[in-house]
């Protein structure tokens, strides 16, 4: 019981984008079998919710781990602006060669945010729909 308390801050953002699940390493038939409707060549879209969790010391002068306006600007520039109202596999370079599943999207968002200078990025959790969510914490285990 002697250990210090650890505080994390969680912030949610939203963007809408289209994607098509199609692997260049699979045949047409295999793509159809593996991805089903998500392989539709015209793509389809989701309203994504991105939950970003950071940790760090709470500054006694502000009561904050990180200034929210600063965090919001960082996430907007790195993730929301480049992804919102885009076609992921056509307009986000990494997804030209990586299938834009939400698993891979989670990892990409984590990579884009992990250099946040004011706090440590703990995890990224993305809801693709209200029924499906994915979480990635880099080299760490996800904790609940």
């Amino acid at each position: 019981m002697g250990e210090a308390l650890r505080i994390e801050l969680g912030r949610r953002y939203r963007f809408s984008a289209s994607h098509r699940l199609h692997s260049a390493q699979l045949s047409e038939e295999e793509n159809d079998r593996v991805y089903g409707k998500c392989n539709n060549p015209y793509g389809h879209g989701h309203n994504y919710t991105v939950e970003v969790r950071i940790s760090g010391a709470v500054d006694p002068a502000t009561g904050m781990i990180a200034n929210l306006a600063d965090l919001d600007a960082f996430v907007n520039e790195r993730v929301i602006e480049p992804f919102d109202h885009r076609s992921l596999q056509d307009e986000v370079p990494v997804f030209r060669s990586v299938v834009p599943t939400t698993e891979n999207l989670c990892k990409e968002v984590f990579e884009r945010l992990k250099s946040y200078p004011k706090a440590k990025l703990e995890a990224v959790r993305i809801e693709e729909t209200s029924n499906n969510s994915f979480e990635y914490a880099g080299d760490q285990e996800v904790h609940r």
Partner: protein
Amino acid sequence: MVYLTRKIEFAASHLYHNPALSAEENRRVFGKCNNPHGHGHNYTLEVTIAGDPDPVTGMVLDLKGLKEILEREIMQRMDHRFLNYEVAELKGQIPTCENVARVIWNLLEPKIPQGRLHRVRLYESADLFADCYRDGAGGAN
């Protein structure tokens, strides 16, 4: 190990102001939250207890008991209150989500009769929350 979570909601007002900073600095750092009249939120608190179910009752702890603890320690203290002026535990602190979550942790941890407090998650809005853990429990660093 089973993790049990109870949720409660309370409404409270607060403002962010650090007397060590100038008026301009306060406005720059805290923005709208520096309004001297305060503003309010509907807070949602999730309290997660970790433990093994009792072999006789099948419970980690009695939820009725937890409900009473939350009513006494949190609702009576914070619901429909001005956090800066009416919650003694927050005196001298900026009542941010981070600080309020930590105060809630410190109020609840010694009161949990069975299992152990695993996480306090306090939502200030649907898009902003703070989590509090005892370091080494759950957290990966």
